[in-house]
């Protein structure tokens, strides 16, 4: 299994974290996972919403150490 990618988008304003995630997903293989870190609270809801709409999978999301994180699995 390939290593999970990490995107540190802390400090980036909405919709920057989502855009960084999408750019990264385009370069990934199906089944590969990426974790995005963000200081934008909206990311915690926006990214799962976007994944549900376009067909990727939200593996987990939450808050830790003053920032939010979302793990996404590329599904298509």
């Amino acid at each position, binding site marked *: 299994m390939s290593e999970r990618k990490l995107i540190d988008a802390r400090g980036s*304003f*909405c*919709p*920057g974290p*989502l*855009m960084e995630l*999408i*750019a990264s997903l*385009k370069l990934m293989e199906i089944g590969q996972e990426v974790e995005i870190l963000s200081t934008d609270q909206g990311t915690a809801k926006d990214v799962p919403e*976007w994944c549900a*709409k*376009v067909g990727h999978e939200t593996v987990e999301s939450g808050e830790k150490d003053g920032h939010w994180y979302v793990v996404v699995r590329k599904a298509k």
Partner: protein
Amino acid sequence: MATPPLFIMLSSVDRDKLQLASMIASVAAVSERPVHVFVSMGAIKVFAKTASGNDRYGDSAFNAELCEKNAPDPIDMFGQGKMLGDMKVWACSMVLDVLGWDESDLVDDLFDGQMGLTKFLSDAEEGQLLSM
């Protein structure tokens, strides 16, 4: 069912409006929703190749905060949405005519061409139209 396309008409130099328009356009475009942006009236001057940095925008209620926090530039946001999603950007042919400009006077790699208002409005009948 496919999501209906989104049509956004820009006419203002107001940074707040352009910031929000660029956010809406780019997020919709990467969410599998086709987006068409029509740039008309004073808004076209924001996209002039000769304009630079924040000076290209008119002042607005939230402009100072956006600059201070180094929020992403609306033109960059439109470009990002176009690169990552399904977005077309059209320059209003009437305002180019008034200014004596053509597409070479506009920022590079963003516009898909000129369009008349009649054609844009006709196309917009198949989707939702926002005017900012």
